């Protein structure tokens, strides 16, 4: 297992380097810089040039890139051009927000995705199956941006059950956190819940037709043992695969939801940095997302090994 982790980490380093290089190249190719943001819509070219010089943006991008990599070797992600603070501080302030939102969405996805997919499989071809799959399809099809706005109007404005936006940290108030993250987490989770439900249903149907399941029923085992212990454990690998992808999508999908609900997360930080050309934040953010995805992939591989003895013995 330690070998697996070390091998994954070793292969992650060139991936992260490549990702950051691609990011620099893309920023180099795209016109514009952070001076436009400070200057506002109607600044003159002279005013823009002045701001550009103040920010050090009159240097070529490749020199800015060299400075960034040199600082990175010292563990310094640099200073944001527009936020007035270090990139590391900016990301660390926001990472817990996005992680808590994504985590909550993941719990919703797991519970309702696997739960509804299981029910649909067990009640195959019944009206329950049809209803669950139809709901999953609708969830897959609705854009989370639209869903977020509709949720605000229904649950915040009309019913007054939840605030329209903002974020309260769990440490400050667990109830406040629950109130401010429920709507965004549901809006974020709906698509992946639909996907997981459909995947769970089809994988479970395949497993339920296997001989060992028939044997388990024949032995008179209780239904919950058959389903939870024998059936669901055997669909763990495909479900984990979908989950690994879903986590990435949830993390990146948080960008839109964070904007709709005015949540100060990493997604919004990075997208704002791209739109405003805050180069150090873009690079730092891309690196952090890369590290996160590498960590998720390693975790998924470890869980494969945990659930599947064949994978465990292979490593």
């Amino acid at each position, binding site marked *: 297992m330690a070998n697996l982790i070390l091998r994954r980490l070793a292969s992650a380093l060139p991936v992260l380097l490549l990702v950051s290089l691609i990011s620099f190249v893309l920023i180099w190719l795209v016109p*514009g810089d952070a001076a436009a943001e400070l*200057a506002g*819509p109607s600044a003159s070219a002279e005013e823009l040039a002045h*701001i550009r010089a*103040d920010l050090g943006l009159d240097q070529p991008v490749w020199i800015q890139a060299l400075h960034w990599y040199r600082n990175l070797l010292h563990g310094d992600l640099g200073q944001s051009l527009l936020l007035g603070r270090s990139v590391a501080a900016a990301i660390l302030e926001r990472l817990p927000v996005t992680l808590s939102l994504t985590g909550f969405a993941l719990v919703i996805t797991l519970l309702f995705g696997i739960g509804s997919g299981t029910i649909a499989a067990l009640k195959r071809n019944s009206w329950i199956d049809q209803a669950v799959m139809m709901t999953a399809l609708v969830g897959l099809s609705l854009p989370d941006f639209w869903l977020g706005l509709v949720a605000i109007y229904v649950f915040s404005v009309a019913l007054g059950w939840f605030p*329209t936006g903002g974020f309260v940290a769990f440490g400050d108030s667990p109830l406040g956190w629950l109130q401010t993250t429920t709507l965004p987490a549901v809006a974020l989770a709906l698509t992946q819940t639909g996907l997981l439900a459909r995947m769970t249903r089809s994988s479970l149907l395949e497993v339920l037709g296997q001989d060992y399941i028939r044997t388990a029923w024949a032995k008179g085992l209780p239904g919950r043992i058959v389903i939870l212990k024998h059936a669901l454990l055997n669909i763990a690998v495909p479900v984990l695969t979908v989950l690994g992808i879903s986590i990435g999508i949830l993390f990146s999908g948080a960008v839109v939801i964070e904007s709709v*609900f005015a949540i100060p997360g990493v997604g919004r*930080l990075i997208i704002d940095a791209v739109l405003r050309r805050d180069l150090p934040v873009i690079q730092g953010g891309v690196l952090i997302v890369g590290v996160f995805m590498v960590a998720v992939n390693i975790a998924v591989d470890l869980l494969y090994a945990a659930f599947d003895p064949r994978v465990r013995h292979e490593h």
Partner: protein
Amino acid sequence: MKRKIGCRWFGIASVGAVAILATSPPASAQQRGGDITVAQQAQPPSLDAMTTFAQAARNITMHVFETLYTRGETGAVIPELALDSSASPDQKTFTFHLRKGVKFHNGKEMTGADVKASLERYAEIGASAQLLAPVSGIDLPDPYTVVVHLNQPVPGFVDEISTPRAPMVIIPAEEAGKGPNKIALIGTGPYQFVDYKPDSYVKLKRFDDYVPNARFQGPDGFGGKKTPYFDTVTFRFMPESGARAAALQTGEVQALEQLAVTDADRLKADPNVKLYEMMPWAFQVFFLNANDGPTKNLKFRQAVNAALGNEEIMTIATDGLFRLTHGWQHPGTEYFAGDVGKDKYNLNNPELAKQLLKEAGYKGEPFTLVTDNSFKNDNDASVVASQQLQAVGINVKLQVADWPTTIATRQKPTGWNMFPIFIGIEPWEGPYSTTTFFTGKENWQQHPDEELEADAAKLNSSPALDDRKAAFAAFQKRLIDQVYAIKLGDLGIYQAARANVANYKPFRIPRMWDVWYK
């Protein structure tokens, strides 16, 4: 008998009085206290007021900082931290007398030393540092007098230093030595800085030792006699327009910097929300490139002008909140040039456009219209205009990009032919800022025009007001004749507040002084 009649009439009068009192709205006396949250779309790129033109910053910093001179309700120049000023006959020396006893948020009294240090900082790192380029020295004959020496006559110097675009705010001298974004946010304004959480909010609290400007009866634009009533003011950043409107409806926020017209139409029926229309807010304009491609040809530019139907463009771009005016200063203001250029405004004449295209020898060369997707009105104006131009035979290439890309594109001398923009505070504050778009080496039309330069020079240097007005009128005529830019019209905005917010008056920022809860 008399007594009975007297009693009856007294009874009727009493009942009447009670009825009148019961139905009359109670006078809304100012009430100190309470917290107010204002929602705005963007977070400020910087709170160092000198370094940025951004509206998102100005909304906040103009509550914290003040300037020597500022702008009143209609853009007139008024004293703020200065008592008065005088200029030497050669317009090269300006003397400012300061108000005494004005306190910074750290308790220190503002004196000439702070003014001098602040202006010197602005000359070095200010976003419009070039405005102070003529300054050759600043003397302090006494703690409350500042004498500014210029190396050339600048009759409009006080106008220029009163700009709220990237304001020349006065900060403590000990802060003025620090670089951009390194200062502690200490000003003399009615509210003081408390906290800034990026992507979330900026919080201010009432400055209880604020010294209002007693020379005024009440607030006037950015200045006047300002009285802070709220305990705290929080500016919350909410990117999504629908979410901001929803937050106002639920009362989570109590004021909006700006409300989309479509949301305003929906909220008009809500008794808990009051809408405030600001008209005009900005000019909606197309700038043309007189240096490249088909727009290098004056006849072609005239054809573009003739083809455009401003009413259709503005209706769609502004969701109906607009007015059609041709002038490059607002009607009713000092430099408004009357009907100059009106004969070339909103022609909406496709046949004339086709004729002009023929005279220009246009052979279908690409016409690149670069627009941004950050501002709905820019994007929509471009889409409608491109259709109108295609209808007369112009080969329009519509290029949509994000804001930094469009800025970078339009700064190049080639590669574009027209771009949209709305300009708000520049025309509002007077002709000087307006002329800077078209003059100097970095003019936006990519083509220096000697007549425009001469008119701008007269505007900047003529001591007599009538001469300056004539210079601007000539400038406007030349600008319109040469079609370096096409003004489509004035666009307005809605601001909004909860109905229990008393005395709110719409302005270029959501002002939280002289406003209170009923």
